[in-house]
């Protein structure tokens, strides 16, 4: 697990782990996902997630055989979004171990760089 500084609302910026999941089974069923915040991933445990980043991910061979990394020109997103989307459509469950914490040397993208994505 690793974290980014992400906007929370207009006046707050918050350290947030890079993944999203469901609050409960009902939300899982209708596929409503959200980032549940830093304190909520503790105590350390294995938890099923909907999507995450690709900054650090261990992928089994059989998954690599089913999914390839891709970006779509019409969407301003990176390959992580499509990776987890493809996992979902192929019935592969991503999991996060919040006992494995990574140090993330992170800097927010400069506006002009983000515009070029």
């Amino acid at each position, binding site marked *: 697990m690793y974290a980014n500084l992400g906007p929370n609302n207009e006046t707050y910026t*918050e350290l947030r782990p890079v993944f999203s999941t469901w609050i409960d089974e009902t939300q899982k069923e209708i596929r409503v996902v959200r980032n549940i915040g830093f304190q909520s991933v503790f*105590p350390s445990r294995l938890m099923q997630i909907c999507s995450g980043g690709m900054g650090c991910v261990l992928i089994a061979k059989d998954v690599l055989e089913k999914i390839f990394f891709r970006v779509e020109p019409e969407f301003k997103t990176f390959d992580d979004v499509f990776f987890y989307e493809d996992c979902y459509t192929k019935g592969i469950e991503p999991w996060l171990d919040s006992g494995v914490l990574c140090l993330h040397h992170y800097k927010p993208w400069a506006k002009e760089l983000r515009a070029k994505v």
Partner: protein
Amino acid sequence: MSAEKTGDAKILVGGIINCDRNFQLAQFIRSVKGLSHKNKKIVCIDNGSIKEFQRFYRHIEGIQFEKVESKSNEREAIVAAREYFRKKAIDEDYDWLLIVDQSIVLPENFITRAIATGRKIIPGLYFETASTNNANSKIITYLPNLFSFSGNDGKNVTVSRLSINDVLPSKTFEVDMAELKVIMLHKSILEKIGFVYQDNPLHGDIHFAMQCRKIQQKIAVDSGIVCRNNRAIVMDAFS
């Protein structure tokens, strides 16, 4: 091979609770009962104001609830409870003592992982919420319950809280001081240290850290076992 290494170590889990603030209790009870280590006894000391406190817990099995003699304030009662657990662990010959506050939720493998560090004083890692001002906005960040001392001989030290990046990536490392809401102590330590009430709660933690220093025992933390802190208050990161 000692019992601690075979996974059969006899553990006393001492919970410090307060029935006046029972909103956090269910999660706390679930977490101590859910600890995966089998050979353990769970005893909780209630510091609440209700005399018939046993009524609160009558439906909870597998935990012994007790009270220590009343103290002038809650922090003093907490220290008394820690001392009670320390003496109980010595008298009843437990291999380890785990003391945990009601506001902390432990990972189920906490005991196993703490013993696996091979150390004798292992506080649990948890985070406080902190805010810092940045231009027109605030940044919410998280600070560990761990501190370092700078200075020489232990008499005039400066105490500084570690930052989140100091505990990452997950590793076992030594610290000078930790807050004591969750701490696991080996039996060989219990007779050499004691919990002492101080007006400032941080001074109690400093006193404990100084005792560890005196007996030349390092405080070690495994940042791969992180506890949830249900009483994470927003504070100024640099106050």
